[in-house]
């Protein structure tokens, strides 16, 4: 143990009062003055050393000068002189990666370095592209044993070549002297994926929120790499936009562009933009009615005030909204903003080599079109914003057709760059004209629409119909033998959670090729039942993926409201789509080891497992447990029964999972703690949320007990109810405050905004009314 004398302290005390004014340095920071003195001395020593070196048997200055540049890796990325735009972009991405990882000095060129000096010879050459796009690759391939491998249009490789055989007549002298790295694919976008695979090889991890570079810079070693990947699932789609404040509706184009960029790094190759009838993305009229609806978030407002729990998440904003729509109040203004958003999403997807598709419900119309459809049904959406056909309209109903065609044509004409259109018939199963069953009528209707000339005829060619979404298992089976437009696919809707979809794995795995071969699995990454509450279902994703791969399904269309929780699931999907052997645990370990450092993964695996269990428990107990709706919390107060036992277990799991995250956080490296801390706070929020709903249930039960025991001592039920309401309010406040500490994207802020509007304020008002 240290002694108690002042000598223990460093003697770094400088009294500026006595500092001589030689250099006029009075009143300057102590550190600057010291730096000046040290710097001068340092330079003097260096000069002396240089002179000594030059006058001795040590290497001469010319070699000394060459040693410095040699320490910085020199790389030339060679692309074809007529390389397509995406490969040029890939080259830029690769350069940026190499600079970030190795501080490399990178040149992008179409020819090998011509200089024959030592520096040029030390340059590493990376040949990027394919034999079809890069003559250098074609040349190099001729000298390689086995040549260039056969790759599908999605296949890609990263392969080191120590050096080309110099005595082979096919070896280009320009290439012969360099170590080479081949980075390419069967198409320009596959080449881009190969670049991201280089990053992955060196420990870069691609999260929805951005890239994480390893804390320990890897050695610049491009030798010995041999990765060749072909997809096990050819379609890897991400569904965005939708219609909830907690989802992508609140994301600006800039924020979406960033996320899409990350999805591209995870090798997603299709963006599905889900739109709803009342949103401001198209304008049209039909049957004498003009569209007037142009709302987001179901037209709800989410003000942020001093009394907003977790308001720190909003950074001073007084309204939670999509910033691209701020101040846009008229229909025309909102329509313009909406068009810019969707067009921007399409452009962003395509510039990254992704297909851009729109997902539209052909039997859902803004409510103002009720005038054109006699007996139209009001659909079950918040705010009663949409209508659908009634049984009075048959599949061939002219007015129905006109409105549907007008709507779809509007999309096709407004977004001419669109690649594909998905027709979603989910929610239309209640339309049973002429006694039809299930979704038969809606499927028939959609298939008729698919061959409408107005959809297929446009400048530059018709949009490709991707297929039908939202069909249940029986309907999907029936489509096996139906004729669909060329290239169309089927997206069966098997459930609103990964668990429910996995429950159908047997059916998925047993699907005949006639169905599987043109089907894509619609895959929620979490559970819509859990809505804003922490959720993970990677184990179920694994089951579904395995079944889909086994039966030869074309791919997956993944979706989630919350990008944050699902980072591990998304990461797993992106790796499993190319590596059939990878397990969720292995994928998570690969992710966490790089992001947070070693020995963190076991804690996170354990914690995430507890959350998966909690997700299952809640998903099973209530299909709309925490779906973001106006009654999401008050329904518990009105339930008037004690909470189910499974909730106590789920709550305990959230608490234990939180502890595991904090343990992981203790061991996480400095730059990787954001990852563990996010989940720690999210799970803390989950714990408080469960406390709150339990208390609401208890308050409701006290209410019921009080009603039953009216003859008992007055006030007992009231006291209990008030105490439970206070507990509920306090727990929700604490949970939202914890969540706000780590809220980083609009979905996080949306969850906080929604819970304030439909939870915190409502409970507060209920308490004030006591």
């Amino acid at each position: 143990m240290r002694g108690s004398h002042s000598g223990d302290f460093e003697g770094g005390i400088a009294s500026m009062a006595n500092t001589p004014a030689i250099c006029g340095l009075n009143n300057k920071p102590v550190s600057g003055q010291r730096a000046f003195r040290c710097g001068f001395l340092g330079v003097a020593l260096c000069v002396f050393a240089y002179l000594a070196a030059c006058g001795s048997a040590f290497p001469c200055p010319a070699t000394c000068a060459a040693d410095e540049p040699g320490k910085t890796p020199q790389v030339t990325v060679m692309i074809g002189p007529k390389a397509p735009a995406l490969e040029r972009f890939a080259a830029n991405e690769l350069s940026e990666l190499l600079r970030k990882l190795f501080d490399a000095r990178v040149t992008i060129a179409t020819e090998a370095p011509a200089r024959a000096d030592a520096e040029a010879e030390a340059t590493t050459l990376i040949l990027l592209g394919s034999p079809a796009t890069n003559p250098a690759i074609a040349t190099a391939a001729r000298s390689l044993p086995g040549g260039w491998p056969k790759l599908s249009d999605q296949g890609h490789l990263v392969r080191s070549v120590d050096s080309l055989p110099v005595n082979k007549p096919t070896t280009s002298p320009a290439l012969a002297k360099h170590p080479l790295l081949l980075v390419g694919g069967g198409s320009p976008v596959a080449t881009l994926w190969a670049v991201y695979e280089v990053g992955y090889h060196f420990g870069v991890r691609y999260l929805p929120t951005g890239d994480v570079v390893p804390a320990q810079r890897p050695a610049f070693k491009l030798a010995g790499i041999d990765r060749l990947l072909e997809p096990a699932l050819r379609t890897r789609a991400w569904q965005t936009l939708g219609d909830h404040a907690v989802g992508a509706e609140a994301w600006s184009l800039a924020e979406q562009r960033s996320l899409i960029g990350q999805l591209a790094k995870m090798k997603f190759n299709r963006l599905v933009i889900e739109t709803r009838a009342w949103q401001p993305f198209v304008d049209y009229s039909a049957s004498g009615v003009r569209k007037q609806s142009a709302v987001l978030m179901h037209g709800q407002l989410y003000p942020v005030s001093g009394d907003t729990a977790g308001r720190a998440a909003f950074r001073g904003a007084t309204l939670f909204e999509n910033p691209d729509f701020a101040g846009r109040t008229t229909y025309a203004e909102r329509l313009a903003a909406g068009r810019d958003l969707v067009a921007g999403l399409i452009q962003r997807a395509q510039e990254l080599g992704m297909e851009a598709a729109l997902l539209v419900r052909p039997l859902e119309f803004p409510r103002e079109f009720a005038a054109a459809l006699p007996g139209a049904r009001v659909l079950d959406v918040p705010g009663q914003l949409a209508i659908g056909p009634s049984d009075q309209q048959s599949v061939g109903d002219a007015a129905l057709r006109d409105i549907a065609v007008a709507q779809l044509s509007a999309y096709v004409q407004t977004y001419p760059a669109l690649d594909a259109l998905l027709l979603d018939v989910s929610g239309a199963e209640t339309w049973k004209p002429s006694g039809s069953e299930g979704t038969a009528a809606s499927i028939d209707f959609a298939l008729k629409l698919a061959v409408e000339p107005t959809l297929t005829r446009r400048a530059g060619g018709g949009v490709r119909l991707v297929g039908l979404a939202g069909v249940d298992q029986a309907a999907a089976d029936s489509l096996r033998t139906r004729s669909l437009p060329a290239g169309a696919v089927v997206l069966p809707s098997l459930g609103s959670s990964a668990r429910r979809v996995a429950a159908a794995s047997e059916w998925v795995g047993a699907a005949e090729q006639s169905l599987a071969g043109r089907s894509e699995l619609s895959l929620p990454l979490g559970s819509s039942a859990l809505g804003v509450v922490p959720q993970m279902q990677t184990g179920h994703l694994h089951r579904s993926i395995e079944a889909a791969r086994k039966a030869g399904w074309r791919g997956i269309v993944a979706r989630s409201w919350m990008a944050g929780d699902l980072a591990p699931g998304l990461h797993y999907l992106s790796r499993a789509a190319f590596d059939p052997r990878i397990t969720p645990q292995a994928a998570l370990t690969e992710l966490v080891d790089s992001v947070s450092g070693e020995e963190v993964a076991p804690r996170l695996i354990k914690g995430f497992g507890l959350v998966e269990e909690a997700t299952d428990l809640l998903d099973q107990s209530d299909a709309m447990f925490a779906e973001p709706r106006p009654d999401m919390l008050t329904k518990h107060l009105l339930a008037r029964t004690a909470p189910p036992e499974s909730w106590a277990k789920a709550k305990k799991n959230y608490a234990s999972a939180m502890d595991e995250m904090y343990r992981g956080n203790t061991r996480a490296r400095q730059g990787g703690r954001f990852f563990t801390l996010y989940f720690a706070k999210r799970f803390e929020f989950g714990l408080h949320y469960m406390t709150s709903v339990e208390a609401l249930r208890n308050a409701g039960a006290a209410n019921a007990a009080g009603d039953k025991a009216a003859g008992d001592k007055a006030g007992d039920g009231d006291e209990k109810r008030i105490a439970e309401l206070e507990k509920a309010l306090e727990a929700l406040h604490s949970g939202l405050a914890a969540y706000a500490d780590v809220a980083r994207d609009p979905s996080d802020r949306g969850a906080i905004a929604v819970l304030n509007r439909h939870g915190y304020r409502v409970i507060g008002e209920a308490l004030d009314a006591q």
Partner: protein
Amino acid sequence: MVRSNLASTHFSPTGLIKRIFAVAVAFAVLASLLGVELEAPGRAEDWPQFRGVNASGVSTSASLPIEFSFQSKVKWEATLGDGIGSPIIAAGRVFNTAMTGEQRFSLFAHDAATGKPLWKRDYDTGVLPRITPPNSHASSTPASDGKRVFAYFSTVGMIAVDAATGADLWQAKLPKPAYLMDWGAAASPVVYKDTVLFCQDDDLAPYLVALDAATGAVRWRTTRNEMLAGYSIPVLCESNGRTDVVVAGSGKLKGYDPATGAERWTCNTMLRTIMTSPVVKDGVIYVAVQSYGDATRTLKFALLEWLDTNQDGILARKEVPQEFWEKFDTSDRNKDGYIGTDEIDTAFQHPANQVGGGSIIQAIRGGGSGDVTKTHVMWTLENRSPSNLSSPLVSRDRLLVVKAGGLSSCFEVADGKPLWQLSRIKNLGEYYASPIAADGKIYIAGRNGFIVVLEDGPAMKVLARNDMGNDILATPSIADGRLFIRTRDKVYCVAE
């Protein structure tokens, strides 16, 4: 009482000197008995350190506003940068600290009345240690004697600058603190006469030091080896004819001689983790502390819960922060690379101070000698009232505490009789800041950015709830009829 023959008519130089001396001594004794600080660190209206004069949290300011907000009654505001240290006010200037860059710490001076920026000093911090949110690296509150400002930063040490110009006076390197749980530094200096007192209770090498205010030279340093990490600041207690420097720490409240650092007394009633600071009034020290768990919850449980990351029930060397490896090796008696169940009890917690958790409010008479545990505790309350973060306020013979959820409790200082307990002040959330009082009002700042104003009386009465627009972790300050409120990134001056 010293008698002096003031009535003598025989004048001689010796006699005059004796008379003058006698009067001076009498005055000093009288002042001491009345508890008057003979060398106040600044003007009476100053707020020269954390929680004001002697960290009491009480100001003599008048005409303070009841209702205000970040948009109302704001005399001036200034954007600083991230920080949770409190503003201090001395000689008409207000001083704040903030992080203004990734590795840059700044010390600001503004005119207290107008907010006019006077000067700003920047310091390169170098690589920063790990801390746990919501702590900030700029967490320490400076102190001032009116002529100089003293600011602490974990990687820089103690800085002294001229209060008027910001010119460097001296810097004293201090050992970088280390925390088993990565909480991060948050201790603050205080000024007593011509010394700067600073207590750094970390988990590695806790100590109390006195630096010469003019030169930064170490006057004395006293190790506090029995302590664990804590954040209590030194307070001064005048009792029994002398002044003691009192520090609350893990398990023990101690009094030291301010001239030498020698320990004068110890009261072994504290709990394991002490984050609140005591308050002194009329020679009595009041503490309100809460530490996780019950009396059996010694440090080893926390180590096994949070540092034993593979949860195998023993601590491996690599599970412990590197700064603690030497201590680890010493504790690893059988040298197997692990601290096992028979080694962990005393591995990082002193064997003579194996204290656990709980919740207490206590009044301890100052001026003792030796172990005063059984002799100087006037009263103790064990209830759920105290906060682990927010220090108690003693004002008008009442002791007030506030904790998470906005639950306040108030007791009479004479005997601890409760006036109200765990009553809601209608502002939920966490409370890091400590309550302060002036002008018949008590100001309580919640983390959610609201400042609740209570009437400073025997019954809980909420006068207002004021929105400052952003998180508040720093205790606000009062001087010259103004409130100075530090939100996470700004300082506001609020007045009528």
